[in-house]
């Protein structure tokens, strides 16, 4: 399959500027990375509503809390590695616990950060965010969905973590594809096995489904953009109807999307399952595609996992 590759960050910047025009309660914070996260677009359009906090993510999150407590809808952005781990206490105490209207939109997540290496490749942010009560976790699948996610979460009044990448990603949805928060999107129907992906891995799942089709295997593909709250209904239905599940994520297999799905299925409908993701190790410098290959995030990895699951099906 050939994809059009587009930037999620660009759409984030575009959506923010539109929101800024539509609503005066939107304020944006960044921590000296606005040209990378693309909050700079908002900063140029609405300088009085943009606050650069410098390289001080903890300060940024608590400042966001004060703004949100005063009626503002706050978008706070930086790289995912700094926007989750470095200010975890601030997110816990001042965003999640008081359930404030703050959207942490973090870019440069995952191993596709590439050359910067393990220090910048956060592969545990979904895990960190999803264990926080009151926090929703969304991983937009592509540039189109990123735009829609931003416009949608701006209408909510509670904390949301949105994870986007640095690199351009395959466009797998249309501009008109509706986005429904909290509702997993079935991208392809199938009855033999279910491939559940999030972010860039959804495109790999679609490629894997094509490959499996060549061998007469009919795979369902689900875009699980909202990891919390989890759309258990769609997941359990897929498990029931296909009898086997593979998850694929650009995140550690420890406590990410695959773990969320596994926990759901263990309690609701037990089927053979395999998680494709980064093993419990740190990444390293390299080109995106090299890293995806080395750390087990390819179409072939998903196909292999699907075969394994199919073998274990009764």
């Amino acid at each position: 399959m050939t994809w059009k590759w587009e930037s999620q960050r660009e759409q984030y910047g575009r959506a923010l500027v539109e929101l800024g025009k539509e609503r005066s309660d939107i304020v944006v914070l960044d921590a000296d990375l606005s040209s990378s996260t693309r909050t700079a677009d908002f900063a140029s359009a609405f300088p009085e509503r943009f606050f650069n906090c410098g390289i001080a993510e903890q300060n940024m999150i608590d400042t966001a809390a004060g703004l949100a407590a005063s009626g503002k809808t706050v978008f706070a952005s930086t790289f995912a590695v700094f926007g989750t781990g470095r200010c975890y206490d601030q997110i816990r105490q001042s965003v999640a616990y008081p359930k404030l209207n703050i959207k942490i939109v973090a870019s440069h997540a995952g191993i596709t950060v590439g050359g910067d290496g393990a220090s910048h490749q956060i592969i545990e942010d979904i895990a960190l965010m999803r264990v926080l009560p009151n926090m929703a976790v969304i991983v937009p699948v592509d540039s189109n969905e990123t735009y829609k996610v931003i416009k949608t979460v701006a209408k909510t009044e509670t904390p949301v973590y949105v994870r986007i990448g640095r690199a351009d990603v395959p466009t797998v949805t249309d501009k008109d594809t509706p986005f429904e928060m909290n509702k997993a999107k079935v991208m392809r129907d199938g009855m033999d096995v279910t491939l559940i992906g999030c972010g860039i891995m959804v495109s790999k799942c679609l490629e894997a489904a094509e490959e499996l089709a060549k061998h007469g295997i009919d795979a369902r593909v689900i875009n699980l953009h909202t990891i919390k709250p989890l759309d258990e209904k769609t997941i359990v239905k897929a498990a029931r109807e296909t009898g086997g599940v593979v998850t694929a994520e650009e995140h550690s297999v420890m406590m990410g999307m695959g773990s969320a799905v596994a926990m759901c299925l263990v309690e609701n409908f037990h089927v053979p399952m395999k998680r494709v993701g980064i093993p419990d190790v740190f990444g390293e410098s390299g080109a995106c595609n090299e890293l995806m290959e080395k750390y087990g995030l390819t179409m072939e990895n998903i196909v292999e996992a699907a075969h394994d699951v199919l073998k274990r099906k009764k």
Partner: protein
Amino acid sequence: MEIYDGEFIAELEAVAKRVRSHSITMIYRAGSGHPGGSLSGVDVMVALYFHIMKHDPNRPDWPERDRFVLSKGHAAPSLYAVLSEAKYFPEKELETLRKLGSRLQGHPCMRKTPGVEMSTGSLGHGLAAGNGMALAAKLDRKLYRIYVLCGDGEMDVGETWEAAMLASHYKLDNITMYLDRNKLQLDGPTEKIMSLEPLADKWKAFGWHVIEINGHSMKEIIQATNEARGVKGRPTVIICHTIKGKGVSYMEGSLHFHGKAPTDEEYKQAMKELGTADQ
């Protein structure tokens, strides 16, 4: 001027005494809490809620209200006692501190307690949160002011200084920070655990207007706050020299009562000293 009126000051001092008594009673009944740090900041909080701040206990979410953030969240008992004295909730409710199902959590929770502006407890967050409120006030062209009470132990926290820079950078003259300089933190004297001095010079270097006062003098608290209101283009810190455990002789300057409830005997003694032995 009313504020220098002796009788008026005496009224504030009487409220402060009741707040101290409530605080100790609450901690005694709960069997845990932080009496020392609760008592040292009482006078600032009483001056704020009973003289300085515009607020309305009947409308805790009144948009024009001044905001108070208790950054040193472990002083929650005295904040609750002040809020109760100010009629945000009945005095009877103070008995529920730290009890299951209570609106009065061990550390302040803005979602549970009427009048609490920010959830705090993990130290070093309050000033940054206050800055966010101050930025919002400027954006909305509102005249309300933000008051933050920090402990001196919080000066160890890196984020305090990040927030100090931000307030100064954005010229937040609508925020005033009271620094409860009781010179003791959990493990010992601040200067032994992590040297803070020269503290005033540090704040000056960060671009703040600095005032030093006796933090137990109502008159000085009010005068300093008035001075802060007049300062344009930069934030003000009022370093309040205080005594940890102020008001109960055996708690004053004592490390022992940083985070420990009084025994039955100690409680009786405290009530005697605070003039509420009959209650």
